[in-house]
């Protein structure tokens, strides 16, 4: 009887161990398959992300619009004073006009062939007497005015990439120390080359 008990005990003690050993090896193999599946998934994800990142376009329009504003500011004002060649202090008139604006500010709005029919830039300058910012004493604009309307839509996610609008203000003086507020709006489209 004791012998029988021993035999049955040994059977019980052997089988679970053996089963356990087999299960562990099988589980390891299954886990290895899953491990490589996970690696493939991660690799796929990284490839996709890298592809999207490097095949997209760099959006430099914001920088471009800021450079344009700096250029216009340099064109209108030097050392904090309105440039004499643009502002006649005796008549209090501005000598800038639509015909000479681009030439005097050294701007060229020609773009690549693909956009030949449609100007990609728009600039607007408003000059106010200090303290009277409701009505500008001088205003001038150049480029494609259609883009101005898109600036308000920039808050909308769907239209935020259509154009880039940058608006900046600065102050300047004339020779008699009269103060002026100058507001410059710069808009760059070039969507096809900056957004994908």
């Amino acid at each position, binding site marked *: 009887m004791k012998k029988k008990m021993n035999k049955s005990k040994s059977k019980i003690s052997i089988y679970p161990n053996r089963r356990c050993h087999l299960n562990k090896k099988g589980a390891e193999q299954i886990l290895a398959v899953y491990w*490589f599946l996970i690696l493939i998934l991660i690799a796929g994800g990284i490839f996709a992300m890298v592809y999207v990142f*490097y095949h997209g*376009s760099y959006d*430099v329009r914001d920088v*471009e619009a800021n*450079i344009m504003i700096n250029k216009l500011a340099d064109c209108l004002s030097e050392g904090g004073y309105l440039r004499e060649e643009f502002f006649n202090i005796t008549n209090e008139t501005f000598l800038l006009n639509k015909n000479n604006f681009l030439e005097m500010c050294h701007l060229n709005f020609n773009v690549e062939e693909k956009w030949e029919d449609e100007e990609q830039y728009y600039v607007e300058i408003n000059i106010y007497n200090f303290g009277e910012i409701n009505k500008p004493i001088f205003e001038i604009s150049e480029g494609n005015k259609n883009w101005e309307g898109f600036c308000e839509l920039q808050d909308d996610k769907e239209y935020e990439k259509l154009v880039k609008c940058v608006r900046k203000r600065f102050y300047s003086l004339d020779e008699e120390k009269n103060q002026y507020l100058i507001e410059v709006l710069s808009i760059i489209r070039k969507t096809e080359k900056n957004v994908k």
Partner: protein
Amino acid sequence: MLMKKRGVLLVENIIFIVLNIVFLTILILFLFKQGSGAVVLEQSYAKNIALLIDSAKPIMEIHLNMEQAIKVAKKNNVEPDEIIKIRDNEVIVKLSEKGGYSYSFFNNVDATAYPKDEFYVFIINEKENE
């Protein structure tokens, strides 16, 4: 018996580690290749140069380090003096025989570019007709 079992385990582990290393190496090589590809560099350099010219003023000389671009261009059989062309107010960067990327600048200046060692020199002058 025990020795044999341990040996099998070691081989399995080594294969597993080697495969992982191979996987990671391929991934890193892919990332580096994508980052230094001709298409990516062409766009990046063209826009950079256009913005440089936009913010430049007449009688300026700009030296731009283009070591990476020159290396890629040489690999793709493009001569260093053919990498950058400035036509009217458009910068064209070419780093492969079939490629090329252009971007326009708004600064109305006369810009010329030529290679000098691993640099490219940009000369900004006023336009003659002004």
